[in-house]
């Protein structure tokens, strides 16, 4: 159960961390992020038979371009024009729907897989067999966790991201180019989701609706954990564990029911996330006023 929790939880965690990173600089529920993961899988389906291993950089480039294009040509102009997070959410839903329809038109509606080449490689752990692709998902989850943590805590870009997440107005007044930071973050997020999408294509296969399913559990993992990357990772693991408990101790069809009862219970007890203390009562406006006051 613990190994399966780690495998499933790592998948949720990759999406949760990517979602959390994007949300920290562009605070709306970007549903089109699910499309980025699905694009990774479908580009893999098209390019891997043609280019073999050389397809991977092309797939990543494609997904990054897709995520960047959305940010540069859709969300940024709308944000600059004063669009609210609710409007951006609806627009991202539109982007996702268009993407899903295009995938449907090009690849058809049926279930497909990226082949079983990676399934054949398995690691015998004694108590269980671990396929290569699932090992890669676990490693990708850990690399994403470490990478995003280092990015946020040890780099100047990370400071900028944290400043924007804390108070965008204040970050802007200190000279941080918010649009540049969002573009860089969208590229990082696109790369993470693209890689994960390829893994999903190998592991459980793909269908045009896969993007939303991938994003859904990731978003819940991020909300359960809290606003930090580590919290999103751990929150995803708790979600996966709750699902597995549902399957093991109750009936399989109760998996989601048990998971969501635990989810609501945890958030009822800790509304800001399991791994977060109650927030300090200091709003962005207050910080801004305080900052202006200091200048005087």
């Amino acid at each position: 159960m613990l190994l399966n929790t780690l495998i499933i939880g790592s998948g949720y965690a990759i999406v949760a961390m990517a979602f959390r990173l994007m949300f920290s600089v562009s605070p709306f529920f970007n549903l089109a992020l699910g499309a980025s993961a699905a694009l990774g899988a479908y580009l893999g389906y098209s390019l891997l038979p043609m280019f073999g291993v050389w397809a991977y950089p092309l797939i990543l480039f494609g997904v990054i371009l897709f995520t960047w294009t959305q940010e540069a040509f859709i969300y940024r102009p709308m944000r600059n024009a004063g669009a609210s997070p609710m409007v951006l959410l609806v627009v991202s839903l539109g982007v996702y729907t268009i993407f899903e329809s295009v995938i449907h038109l090009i690849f058809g509606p049926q279930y497909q897989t990226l082949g079983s080449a990676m399934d054949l490689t398995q690691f015998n752990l004694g108590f269980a067999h671990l396929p290569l692709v699932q090992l890669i998902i676990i490693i990708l989850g850990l690399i994403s966790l470490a990478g995003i943590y280092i990015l946020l805590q040890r780099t100047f870009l990370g400071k900028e991201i944290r400043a924007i997440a804390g108070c965008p107005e204040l970050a802007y007044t200190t000279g941080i180019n918010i649009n540049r930071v969002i573009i860089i973050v969208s590229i990082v997020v696109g790369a993470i989701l693209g890689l994960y999408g390829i893994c999903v294509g190998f592991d459980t296969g793909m269908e045009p609706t896969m993007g939303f399913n991938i994003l859904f559990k990731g978003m819940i993992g991020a909300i359960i954990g809290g606003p930090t990357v580590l919290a999103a990772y751990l929150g995803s693991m708790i979600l996966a564990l709750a699902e597995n408990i549902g399957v093991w101790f109750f009936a399989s069809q109760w998996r989601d029911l048990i998971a969501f009862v635990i989810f609501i219970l945890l958030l009822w007890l800790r509304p800001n996330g399991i791994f977060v203390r109650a927030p300090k009562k200091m709003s962005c406006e207050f910080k801004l006023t305080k900052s202006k006051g200091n200048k005087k």
Partner: protein
Amino acid sequence: MKKLLSVLCACLALTACGKDDANTVVFGASLPLTGNMAHIGVSAKNSLEMALNEWNKKDTKFKYKLLVEDDAFEAKKVASIVNKFVNVDHAKAVFTVFSIGANVASPIAQNGHAIHMTCAYGSQPADGFYNFNNITQYDNQTDLMLAELKKRGIKSIALLVSNNIGSTQQAEILEQKIKKDKKIKLIGKEIFNPGTKDFKMIIEKILAHGTPDIFYVDGITPDANLIAKYLKETTGKINLTTINDFIETPERENFEGLWFVESASGTDEFNAQYEQQYGDQVYLCGANMYDNLNLLIEAYEQSETPDIDNDAVVQRLLNVKNKSGAIGTFSIDENGIVQSSATVKVIKKGKAIAIDK
């Protein structure tokens, strides 16, 4: 105001132009042309059109027109589409596939006195005078499954069933027969929700109670594919069987060499004709829909007057016995259920081949 009236008149004129004359019999098909079951819907649509084209080349008493709309395998869309067919388009007959759509369509067709022909599991879709169901029934399929399990010396089995009405009903009948027969031990039964992607825990849970000789899956695409994959990962082999699931998906790589029970489907001649015409294989219900349309048109062609009476057509359909069609030989019983026989098949090079061949 004059402009507005002109536009309204033009619209009315266009509407009048679109109306079919009294000699045209309109049929409507509500099929899943998008979504996970689209390959089934497209196959059914092609088969209906194939039958219609063949009739249109003949000198027939009436003209026949087929309207097709996409219900995306959603019950509420089926309701809206079938309502439109019956009440707006005045369709004389409607077609659906699978119980999600058929259960919704049958009362609408019944109330509108339109004939409803479907290919769906369960007896419910055929409830009512105007409803007909053309798929091999649970009893026939589960009897054959149990006989084949015993023939192959299977001593224990585990059931993995999707939480949808067709799958749960069929698996329940099989479970009851296995328990009554007492020759095969039921290791476990797990019902999972449609859309489940992770079957590892479900399989591990069953294995914790014992290792069955074979797993039986009853679900919707891609359940069987994923279960096969997880079985390979967990146990190192794919000891899996099903009723129909292996041929409901185009991805059959994991099922190579596996046997299963298939409801009456296309004959070799029909399958070859379909493949030649559409460049793709025909899926479950395709041949059944081809037969459904042929049966209907044959029954309408026996009408003497242009004012087509559906009650008389229903009576003619109920008299169909030992008829040869795209699914082989079949009869229609007094409840409007097509009686046909399932066969045991094996997947070879991605195709379902009858064991005796």
